[in-house]
């Protein structure tokens, strides 16, 4: 019996609850994967999703998560290959179809991307990720309806900061930093404690040339996550900014934002 077992706290007495050991199963790794994804640690997320699949090879979220990690890491061809492998097992998984659409769009196969996005909508049209993916495809196709897709995504996401952050990343990939900035601000409004949202905000501000606000954003990131290397790199970049970069930022502000 523990010597602390009969301690009294504010008039209460009794045994302390025993610490439950952590059960590392499918749900544990899935949770870890979601958290690492939200923290922007895509490599780790990839491995956590692999662990999930070892427990449950038919977990659609894990397969989709892996494809999305590969897309975020810029490995679009590998994302397409892995999506094809996943679709052999789960041919009708809507988020998987949507993820493949994004991979195809990033590879330049815009017809294929639209086809897979349409297929994902036919399976299940009420998931925010499907609309996020569709917006990504529409941006790649340079169609104005992309804005509608992101609005629809936001409506379905019900204020989840994660989707605002992902939308900001999509716009940033397509070099539309002003719109990315808008979604990053939305992500911060919904999740002010999420350092990845602040990081995305800082990167968008830096890309547009707003070095002052970018510096503040990166400092905010370091307050929330002192080990964030991306924020430290951003601050270093601001310190060493030369004439060329200033000119480029001015150009971007004037013509591309």
């Amino acid at each position: 019996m523990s010597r602390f077992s009969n301690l009294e706290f504010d008039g209460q007495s009794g045994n302390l609850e025993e610490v439950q050991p952590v059960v590392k199963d499918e749900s544990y790794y899935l949770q870890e994967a979601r958290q690492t994804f939200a923290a922007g640690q895509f490599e780790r997320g990839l491995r956590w999703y692999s662990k999930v699949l070892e427990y449950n090879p038919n977990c659609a979220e894990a397969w989709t998560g892996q494809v999305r990690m590969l897309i975020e890491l810029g490995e679009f061809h590998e994302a397409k290959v892995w999506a094809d492998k996943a679709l052999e097992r789960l041919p009708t998984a809507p988020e998987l179809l949507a993820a493949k659409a994004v991979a195809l769009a990033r590879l330049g196969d815009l017809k294929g991307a639209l086809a897979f996005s349409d297929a994902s909508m036919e399976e299940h049209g009420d998931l925010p990720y499907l609309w996020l993916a569709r917006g990504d495809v529409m941006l790649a196709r340079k169609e104005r309806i992309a804005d509608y897709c992101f609005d629809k995504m936001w409506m379905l996401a019900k204020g989840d900061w994660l989707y605002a952050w992902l939308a900001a990343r999509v716009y940033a990939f397509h070099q539309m930093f002003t719109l990315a900035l808008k979604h990053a601000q939305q992500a911060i409004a919904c999740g002010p404690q999420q350092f990845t949202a602040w990081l995305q905000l800082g990167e968008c501000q830096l890309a547009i040339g707003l070095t002052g606000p970018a510096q503040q954003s990166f400092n905010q990131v370091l307050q929330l996550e002192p080990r964030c290397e991306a924020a430290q790199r951003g601050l270093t970049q601001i310190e060493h900014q030369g004439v060329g970069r200033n000119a480029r930022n001015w150009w971007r502000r004037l013509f591309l934002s």
Partner: protein
Amino acid sequence: MEAQESSYYPPRARWYSPLWYRWLAFYHGLQSHLPSMPKEFALRHVLFSMLVPGYGFRVVGHPLTARVCLLAYGVLGLVFIVALGHGLANLAMGLMIGIHGSGVVAVTRLLDGGEGLFRRLALSLVFVLAMTAAVYLPLRNLMTQHVWLPLQTQKGVVVVNCLASLAQTSRGDMVAYEIGGASSYYSREHGSFVVREGFGLDRILAVAGDEVRFDAGGLWVSGERLSRGFNMPTQGAFVVPPGKVFVWPSLGRTGNAGPLLAAVPDAMLKIGLVDESRFRGVAFGHWFGRKQNLP
């Protein structure tokens, strides 16, 4: 996390992946700009029909025609090489271009369901002209400048081996060399004459290090007597410098040289010392079983 990869871990990008992504973006971009094609059609068919003569017939469902075209193309290619320098070679090349273009014309039929004849003809004409200018003519020029050079002589066409080097030649070899450029204009106190640009085809009389001596009867090359050539000097001697060979140019003459005749041997001596920059090759003794009529 475990170092060993899970079987559910995806394959990762390699070092060459960025290049692959750029190619895919270009490929898809190209495909999106081509006219709309039937489902059974693929961009690779268009590309193959441009690269492989007659392939277009196979795409539209005539494999036998495709094989015949490819075979004919090969035979004509052989005819072109064997008859190099003759009119028959030009005819063969024209037919090769025609076969190649026909394959592409066959493929274009699929693009608009057989309609738009004018459009297909225009497209085909553009392709044939582009192919001729961008592929066939450059290839032919490349071959004649660096591999086999056909020269028209009074006795017919002589094919010269451009792959031979000056260092590999010896006395008696029939060599081709360039005439012209800065050495084309000769002047004397009372006038001038011009040697037109072109190629010379003559036998090597002396190689680097040989002593050449002229007299009234002819010339001596390292102690060996050779017969006199047209307009050779009657006196004088020199040693062939390193990196050169000595030939006596067999040039025709137009007009009356008059007092300038005395300047001709000097000009011929300058032209006759051939270095690597003007050397073009050694004439074949036989060309595909046909004995060449060497001067």
